[in-house]
């Protein structure tokens, strides 16, 4: 692994992912320094979700190099998963558990006492304190998304992966996500976000990566890293 791979939050070189004969992602070279917010822009099927799943180590590359937080995706998945949190289309929730039980379980699985103490605060932060004892199966799509965000907060990641974080959310929910991502970035967190909400993504992220047919077709810097304007 090169020096770049060790120093970057995400380092990819010649990265590709194939499903059968179809290449969902090909020839991707990517360097995301720590503390940077990146917006993955592209139409449906461009490869955004595939890239996020590869970075989350939920999927194995078909070719190329990928290091996340300095850890090799082929050999050090456990280390990657300790530093990454993913909020995707699938929210990883059990319909039969209540919101409080869901977060308590995640906290227990994480094994940190701080996370266990944080459950009530996180429920409050995402506006689900009043619904904490209701089962997730009774929740609306927006409430489920809020709970998934609370779960991601609880994991205290260094790298946050967001796949369409604003979908299903009402205006208050979107503002909540915006404020949360902004705060996360301000404290040195790295964000990779795929979104069709151009206005909000432009306001939140410092860099843009354009994907089309599984390849990077453009890169844009919106502002310098750490510049809140």
């Amino acid at each position, binding site marked *: 692994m090169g020096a770049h791979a060790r120093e970057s939050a995400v380092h990819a070189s010649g990265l590709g992912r194939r499903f059968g004969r179809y290449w969902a992602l090909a020839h991707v070279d990517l360097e995301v320094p720590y503390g940077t917010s990146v917006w993955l822009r592209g139409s449906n099927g461009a490869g955004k979700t595939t890239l996020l799943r590869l970075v989350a180590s939920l999927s194995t590359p078909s070719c190329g190099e990928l290091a996340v937080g300095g850890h090799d995706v082929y050999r050090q998945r456990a280390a990657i998963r300790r530093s990454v949190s993913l909020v995707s289309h699938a929210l990883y*929730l059990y319909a039969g558990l209540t919101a409080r039980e869901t977060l308590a379980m995640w906290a227990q699985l994480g094994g940190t006492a701080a996370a266990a103490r944080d459950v009530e605060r996180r429920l409050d932060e995402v506006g689900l304190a009043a619904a904490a004892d209701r089962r997730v199966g009774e929740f609306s799509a927006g409430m489920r998304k809020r709970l998934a965000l609370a779960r991601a907060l609880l994991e205290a990641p260094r790298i946050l992966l967001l796949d369409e974080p604003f979908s299903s959310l009402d205006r208050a929910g979107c503002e909540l996500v915006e404020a949360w991502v902004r705060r996360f970035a301000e404290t040195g967190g790295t964000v990779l976000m795929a979104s069709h909400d151009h206005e909000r993504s432009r306001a939140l992220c410092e860099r843009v990566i354009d994907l089309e047919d599984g390849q990077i077709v453009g890169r844009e810097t919106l502002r310098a890293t750490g510049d809140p304007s």
Partner: protein
Amino acid sequence: MRVVWSILAKDLLLEWRERARTLSVVLFAVVTLLLFSFALGPDVEALRAGTPGFLVLALLLSSTLALNESFRIEREDRALEGLLMRPVGSMAMFYAKALANALLLTLLAPVVVGLAVVLYSLEVGPPALAGLVGCWALGAAGLAAPGTLYAAMTSRLKTQDVALPILLFPLVVPVLLGSVKAMDLVLFGDAMNQLQSWVSLLLAFDVIYWAVCGVLFRYAVEEGE
């Protein structure tokens, strides 16, 4: 252990909350037992002689229902992926899921064994009943480990309901034979002192299945290249 307990507690809580699902497994086992008695007719002696086989087949057939269900909840909303994203070893995940399945299958024993005693007019005392339940539990453990592994593997398939028994049944033949023979000796006497050997054989297969399937589980749940 903390991780195993967290996932096991979650599974048991969900089973309790969705009791209709658990009840359907119990009813399936009961119906299977009833069907065997209808198929053989009113010949009580033949029914008695076949009791060990009927019990083990009822366990085997109802296990596929329970095992399929245990991974349906993990595939809904891709909850299993969420577990993988936590610092949870796949081995711990396996032991939690397999324990939950073994427990559920063992809990069928009082109902199904009790029904067999009534249906087949078995004359058994408490020690023999305890022996039957013990053999059932060992059989359930032997099914739960490979069953959990295969249920995880087949849960991504559209043909899961068919694929699971096709893969599982040939593998668990030793457990099936051992359970039937041990139950037979418990019910009809053990003049040659063979019971201990059969129970040891069952235990040995249980240990092998639990060890090997625990190691292989990661390949069943992780997405390959």
